[in-house]
């Protein structure tokens, strides 16, 4: 069962309004017209409420600055719709005294259905916010930032403009029908004319807003994809599950983990549920999930060659696989940095442990050829045959989208964990068993505060690993666009909510919002040639620019691969997969790691435990994937 999105509701409303408009010019009894006109007033009121939401956080800013011209236009459009609704109500009342039999023509039900869907859409948007006593909205979901982002706001205003135009048509039809009756309709025609005027005025205001032509297609894509804000019900593991169910289960867990990340950020100091044991466990889970993602992405990259899929996707999938390997290594460093440090409470109690487990196991069941796979050795199995994993393009996209969703959710959770661990470290609530320290004798207190140098290393490794997780998600963003995967919504949402945009959101600061962790901008490298060319052409379409970055990355991959191939003796492996096994993806010289999505991971590498003399016990110097192959 799929959940209705805002797009579903708006499209249904538009369909019913179109149908109603076609019926509106038919001759009918005056009493029937009264109900249709009244219902039209309700529909106008429903649209007006959308505009109220758009402007709700702006305060008096639109009157103080010309930079808020879009909101200014929305304010006046809302007033115009309010006036139109009032005229429609007055017109409807002019017929109210006329008794009539039920209208056999479903004009009024059509308008009512449209109104219902518009109202439901508005309610859906409201689920993403909470309001305080002063009416100030606070984001309540990861979609809140998307809804208030400039591209989506522009798309919403365009949508309201379109629906307003439809209501104008409907009102014009009703007006024509009224003048065609022989009843004493009094002021009704005038009132309908006034309503039409104000509807047209509202539409003009919206169309003239500066944002009107700035709503790129991704704004509409996101607007139509906004779901109702509710945590999906957990999908318990069953075995065996077909691939599509595994992928769906991963998406469900990812949705739950996003909600958990949002709810848990900043709570560690006030909740005993956040334990070192839980953190150590989730760190491990992330390392394993990244490792499984690498396996899956390499299989998909291999499969692209045999399927009618954009061959460019192979290079992006390979780049993403390398990002996954890097992510795995970074989380292993975090495990090493935790060492024997602990917290005042114990147990696997932190929110997200159960959902991370479900997600991890399903990723494992995708990656390995065992429908009963668990991390236990007794369930070990060889890596699934790529042809079995993705027999066709549709399955390839489905599996890819699941990996993308998982990586994005784990990146959100990593950002939340980083905040929580930082808070606990700052409060000096990380401890170390005294007897595990060198040369310490037993004391009545079995735990002491962990040395600051150890906790500092721990925090640095978290920062590095969280950045690597985000890089993985961003690397997958690019591939999602090329594959046209459903998870491309993640890419568009990240672009829409990136830092530096004039987001009208209030409440939680963007840096405290782990919903769509942005790539670390400070690590951004110079543009590649394709991206440079687009900038020279004054292209500001973010999706095109992201694709350009991906093309530059793929080109660098190709060159690196060619260089590797020419430097190999004749009898060395020639396939891409074999080459990947032989090289060191985390080498500082690897072009892929230097370009897309960014080099955050590399920058942080020098701070990792392996490179630090303060390292508690670093994992192997080379990434595990290389040695394991």
């Amino acid at each position, binding site marked *: 069962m799929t959940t209705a999105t805002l797009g579903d509701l708006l499209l249904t409303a538009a369909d019913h309004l179109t149908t109603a408009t076609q019926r509106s010019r038919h001759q009918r009894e005056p009493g029937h017209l009264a109900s249709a006109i009244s219902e039209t007033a309700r529909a106008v009121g429903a649209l007006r409420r959308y505009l109220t939401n758009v402007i709700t956080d702006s305060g008096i800013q639109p009157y103080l600055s010309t930079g808020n011209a879009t909101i200014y236009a929305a304010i006046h459009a809302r007033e115009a719709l309010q006036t139109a609704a009032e005229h429609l109500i007055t017109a409807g009342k002019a017929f109210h005294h006329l008794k009539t039999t039920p209208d056999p023509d479903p004009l009024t039900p059509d308008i009512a259905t449209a109104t219902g869907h518009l109202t439901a859409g508005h309610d859906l948007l409201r689920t993403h916010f909470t309001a305080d006593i002063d009416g100030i909205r606070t984001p309540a979901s990861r979609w809140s930032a998307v809804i208030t982002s400039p591209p989506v706001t522009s798309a919403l205003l365009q949508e309201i403009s379109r629906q307003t135009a439809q209501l104008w048509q409907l009102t014009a039809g009703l007006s024509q029908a009224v003048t065609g009756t022989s009843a004493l309709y009094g002021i009704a025609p005038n009132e309908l004319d006034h309503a039409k005027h104000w509807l047209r005025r509202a539409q003009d205001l919206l169309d003239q807003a500066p944002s009107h032509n700035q709503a790129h297609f991704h704004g509409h894509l996101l607007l139509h994809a906004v779901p109702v804000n509710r945590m999906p019900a957990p999908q318990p593991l069953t075995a065996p599950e077909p691939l599509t169910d595994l992928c769906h289960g991963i998406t469900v867990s990812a949705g739950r983990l996003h909600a958990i990340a949002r709810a848990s950020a900043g709570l560690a100091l006030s909740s005993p549920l956040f334990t070192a044991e839980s953190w*150590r466990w989730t760190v491990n889970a992330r390392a394993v999930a990244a490792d499984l993602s690498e396996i899956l992405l390499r299989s998909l990259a291999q499969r692209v060659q045999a399927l009618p899929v954009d061959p460019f996707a192979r290079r992006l999938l390979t780049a993403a696989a390398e990002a996954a390997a890097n992510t795995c290594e970074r989380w292993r460093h975090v495990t090493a940095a935790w060492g024997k440090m602990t917290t005042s409470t114990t147990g696997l109690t932190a929110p997200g442990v159960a959902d991370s487990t479900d997600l991890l196991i399903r990723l494992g069941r995708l990656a390995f050829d065992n429908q009963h796979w668990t991390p236990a050795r007794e369930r070990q199995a060889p*890596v699934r045959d790529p042809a079995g994993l993705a027999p066709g393009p549709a399955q390839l996209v489905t599996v890819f989208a699941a990996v993308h969703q998982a990586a994005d959710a784990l990146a959100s959770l990593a950002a939340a964990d980083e905040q929580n661990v930082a808070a606990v470290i700052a409060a000096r609530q990380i401890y170390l068993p005294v*007897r595990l320290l*060198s040369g310490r*004798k037993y004391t009545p207190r079995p735990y002491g505060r962990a040395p600051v140098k150890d906790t500092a290393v721990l925090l640095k490794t978290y920062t590095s690993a969280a950045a690597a997780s985000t890089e993985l998600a961003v690397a997958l963003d690019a591939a999602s666009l090329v594959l046209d995967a459903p998870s491309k919504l993640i890419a568009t949402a990240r672009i829409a909510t990136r830092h530096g945009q004039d987001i009208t959101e209030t409440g939680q600061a963007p840096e405290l919002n782990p919903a769509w962790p942005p790539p670390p901008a400070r690590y951004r490298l110079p543009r590649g040639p394709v991206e440079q060319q687009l900038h020279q052409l004054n292209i500001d379409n973010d999706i095109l620019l992201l694709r350009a970055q991906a093309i530059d990355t793929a080109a660098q991959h190709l060159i690196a691969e060619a260089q590797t191939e020419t430097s190999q003796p004749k009898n060395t492996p020639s396939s891409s997969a074999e080459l990947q096994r032989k090289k060191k993806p985390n080498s500082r010289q690897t072009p892929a790691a230097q370009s897309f999505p960014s080099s955050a991971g590399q920058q942080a590498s020098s701070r990792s435990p392996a490179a630090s003399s303060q390292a508690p*016990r670093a*994992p192997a110097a080379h990434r595990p994937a290389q040695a394991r192959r």
Partner: protein
Amino acid sequence: MNQISTAHQQLKQADGLGQVLALSLQAFGLLEGACQDGQDGSRELFAAYAFAASAATEAQIAIAAAPSLSDPDPAWPGPAQSVQHDKKETDPDALAGLAALLHARLTDAGRQARDADDHAACAEAAQQAHLISRLLALPPRP
């Protein structure tokens, strides 16, 4: 005889709560190191080794809080540094065997412990040992 076998033998012969705890602490240190190295080996076993290593860490933290754990020799550099396991010792069967023995000895020790903290430490460490054993053991052949 390698270190895993030695630890196995010593733990088998351990007598008294203090000794069981001390030897268990060392054995978990060995398991942790071996499981960390094991992660660099077989790709299929990466997850098993990763979670087993964490379980070994948790067990050491639990045992370190047990009041009956004998005081370390001041000259002793600490368990983490003292146990230098051989990197080749990642045979999962051997590790699972040691974990199973740890589970058995710590469960027994916990039953006999009079101090609540000792009891809790043994129970927690035994549970972690059981987890390691389950992660690394193959099912018995019919």
